[in-house]
C-alpha cells in the first residue's frame, strides 16, 4: 500500500515537472493553445452559432394553425416558414430536422373530429434520434391541440432521404463540423504530438537515464506523461466547451466520447514514445498520424464514395467523430452510440496492450 502511494507520488512529481516544462517550452505551449486560438478565430468569423443543437422545422402553413403558434414559442425549436410544399421538401433534404405541410382548415377539422391529413417530411439520413425527437414533438403538439392523447390527424410520414451523405447528416452545419473538428484536433494533437514528445525528449536529452536510476521506474515515467496528456486534454477541451456557450448537445455522451477519445489518443502517443528515439521522428510520424486521425472529420464536409468511405471507418477516430456528432445533434440514443463506444473501447484495449509491451521491454532491457 505504502509503495503504491509512493508510486502515485512519483507519478505526480513527474507530471508536475512536465507541466511546468510544457509552459517553459514555447513550441509545446503554443501547440497546446492552438485549438483554442482556432476556436476563438472561428467564433469571431461566425459569431452567431445559437442555432447549434436546435431542432429546425420547415413549415408550410395554409391554415394559420395554432400548432405553428405553439411551435414558434417553444425553446430549442427554430421554424422555417415557407411558401410552398416544395420549399419544405428542399429544406428537409438540406438542413431541417423535419417538415410539416398543414392544409387549410386544419384546426377546424381537428376541432370537428374529422381527422384531417398532415404531411410530415423527414430525412432518414439525419439519423434516428433526431427524427424520433421531431415526431414526438409533433405528436405532443397535436394531442395538445385536440385536448386528448389519441392522434387527431392522419399523419403521413414521407421520407425525403436524398443522395448519400456524410455522418453530419443533411447539409453542412458549419458550427457542428468546426466544433467536432477542433475537439478531435485537440484530443488527437495532444495524444500524438505532445505525449510522445514528452517521452522522447527525455530519451533524446538522456534525462530518462537519470529518471530510471532515481526511485522512478518506467511505469511511473509513462504514467506521469499520460497524466500530463490527460490534464492537457481536460483543460483544452474543457476551455473549448466553456467558450462554446450555446452547447446543446447530450452531455453524458459528449463526456464519454471525450474521455474515451482522450484515453485512446494518449495511449497511441505513449506507444509512439516507446518506439521513437528522436523528436524529429515524432514530428514526422505525428504529422502523418494527425492527418489520418483527422480524416473522419473531413469526410463530413466531403462525403467519400465506397470503398473510401469504408476505409475511413477503419480509422478509430471515425467513431469519436460519430459519437461527438450524434451528441451535438441531440439525436444520440443508446442504440445509435453503442457500436461506436464498443469500437473505441476495443481500440483503447489494443493501444493499452501495446504500451504495456513497450514499458515491459524497456524494463527488461
Amino acid at each position, binding site marked *: 500500500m505504502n*509503495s503504491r502511494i509512493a508510486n502515485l507520488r*512519483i507519478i505526480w*512529481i*513527474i507530471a508536475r*515537472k512536465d507541466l*511546468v*516544462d510544457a509552459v*517553459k*517550452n514555447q513550441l509545446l505551449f503554443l501547440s497546446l493553445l492552438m485549438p483554442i486560438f482556432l476556436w476563438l478565430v472561428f467564433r469571431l468569423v461566425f459569431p452567431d452559432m445559437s442555432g447549434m443543437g436546435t431542432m429546425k422545422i420547415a413549415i408550410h402553413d395554409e391554415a394559420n394553425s395554432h400548432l405553428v403558434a405553439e411551435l414558434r414559442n417553444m425553446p430549442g425549436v427554430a421554424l422555417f416558414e415557407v411558401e410552398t410544399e416544395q420549399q419544405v421538401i428542399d429544406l428537409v433534404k438540406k438542413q431541417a430536422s423535419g417538415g410539416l405541410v398543414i392544409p387549410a382548415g386544419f384546426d377546424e377539422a381537428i376541432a370537428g373530429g374529422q381527422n384531417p391529413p398532415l404531411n410530415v417530411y423527414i430525412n432518414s439520413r439525419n439519423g434516428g434520434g433526431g427524427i424520433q425527437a421531431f415526431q414526438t414533438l409533433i405528436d405532443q403538439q397535436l394531442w395538445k391541440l385536440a385536448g386528448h392523447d389519441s392522434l387527431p390527424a392522419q399523419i403521413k410520414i414521407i421520407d425525403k432521404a436524398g443522395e448519400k451523405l456524410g455522418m453530419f447528416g443533411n447539409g453542412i452545419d458549419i458550427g457542428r463540423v468546426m466544433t467536432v473538428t477542433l475537439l478531435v484536433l485537440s484530443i488527437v494533437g495532444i495524444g500524438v504530438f505532445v505525449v510522445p514528445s514528452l517521452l522522447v525528449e527525455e530519451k533524446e*536529452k*538522456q*534525462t530518462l*537515464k*537519470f*529518471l*530510471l*536510476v*532515481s*526511485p*522512478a*521506474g518506467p511505469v511511473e515515467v509513462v504514467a506521469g506523461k499520460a497524466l500530463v496528456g490527460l490534464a492537457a486534454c481536460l483543460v483544452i477541451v474543457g476551455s473549448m466547451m466553456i467558450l462554446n456557450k450555446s452547447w446543446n448537445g447530450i452531455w453524458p455522451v459528449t463526456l464519454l466520447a471525450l474521455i474515451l477519445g482522450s484515453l485512446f489518443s494518449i495511449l497511441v502517443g505513449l506507444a509512439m514514445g516507446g518506439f521513437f528515439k528522436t523528436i524529429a521522428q515524432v514530428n514526422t510520424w505525428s504529422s502523418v498520424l494527425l492527418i489520418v486521425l483527422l480524416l473522419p472529420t473531413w469526410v463530413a464536409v466531403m462525403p467519400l464514395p465506397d470503398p473510401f468511405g469504408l476505409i475511413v471507418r477503419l480509422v478509430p477516430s471515425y467513431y469519436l467523430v460519430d459519437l461527438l456528432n450524434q451528441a451535438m445533434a441531440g439525436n444520440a440514443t443508446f442504440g445509435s452510440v453503442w457500436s461506436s463506444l464498443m469500437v473505441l473501447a476495443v481500440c483503447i484495449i489494443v493501444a493499452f496492450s501495446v504500451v504495456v509491451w513497450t514499458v515491459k521491454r524497456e524494463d*527488461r*532491457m
Partner: protein
Amino acid sequence: MNTIEVDGLSRTFNGRLVVDELTFTVQEGEIFGFLGPNGAGKTTTIRLLTGQIHPTSGRASVSGFDIVHQRQQLKRCIGVVFEEQNLYERFSGRENLAFSASLYGVDSKRVEEVLEQVSLRERANDRVQKYSNGMRQRLVIARALLHKPRVLFLDEPTRGLDPIVAREIRLMITSLVDQGMTVFLTTHYMEEAEHLCRHVAFFNHGRIIALDTPERLKASYGKRGINLTLMDGAHLYIPFDETKNGEHLGELAASGRILTAHSAEASLEDVFVQLTGRRLAE
C-alpha cells in the same frame, strides 16, 4: 568490507558479448578506477551495476542490494554521474535539484547545501541553458549527491572539461571519499586514475585484464630504476636490482655530475599498452 561485489557478470546485446564474466570487489570508502578505451564496455558495466539494464548472466550487489532483485533499494543508495550532462535545460539549476529532491523525498534545505557544496548558489536561478560546461558538470554531481548516496558512480566525470574545472572535480571526489563514500570511476585519463584510485581495473573488450593498486601494476610491468641526465648531456639508466648500482648512484650524486633524475617506473598508460597493445585514448 566490500561495497560492490561482482561475480561472473555478463551482458550481450544482439548476440554480441559486451561485458564478459566480470568478477571483482570494491571496498567501502575507496575510489575504484575502471580504465579502458572507448567502446570497451565501461558504460555498460555502470548501467548493469546501477540497475538500468539486466545482466545476461552472473550476479552483483551494491551496498548489499542485488542489482536485479532489489532495484528500488539499490536506487536509493547510489548516485550516478552520467557521461552526458543530462539536465533539464529549460529549468534553472535550483529547479533541476528541486525536482530530483522531490523524487527522492529529500528536504529542500538539502538543495541549498549541495548548491553551496558545488559553488553554484549564485547562479542557481539561471536556466541550465546558460551554464558553462563546468557548471553543468558540477550541477550533475550535485544532483547525484543530493540524497547522500553510499556509492557514487562516475562515468568519465572530467571528459571535455578544462584542466582547472577537471582539477576542481577531482578535489571534490577526494573530499567525498574522505567523508566515507565509495566511488566507482570510469575514465580513460591515466593521471586521473593514478592520482585518485586505490585500485584500478584495466578493461578491454568486455573483460578485466588486470586489477590491482596503481603502484603494484606499475611495479609489475615497469622497470625498477632511475633515468639520469648528466651535466655533460649523457643519459644513464641505473637499475635498482644490484647493490653496486646504489653505490654508483651515490658516487654520481656526490660528484655533482647529475643534472636531472627521474624514476624509470612504467606509467599506467605503459602498462595498459603492454597488456593490450592499445592506447587508452583510442
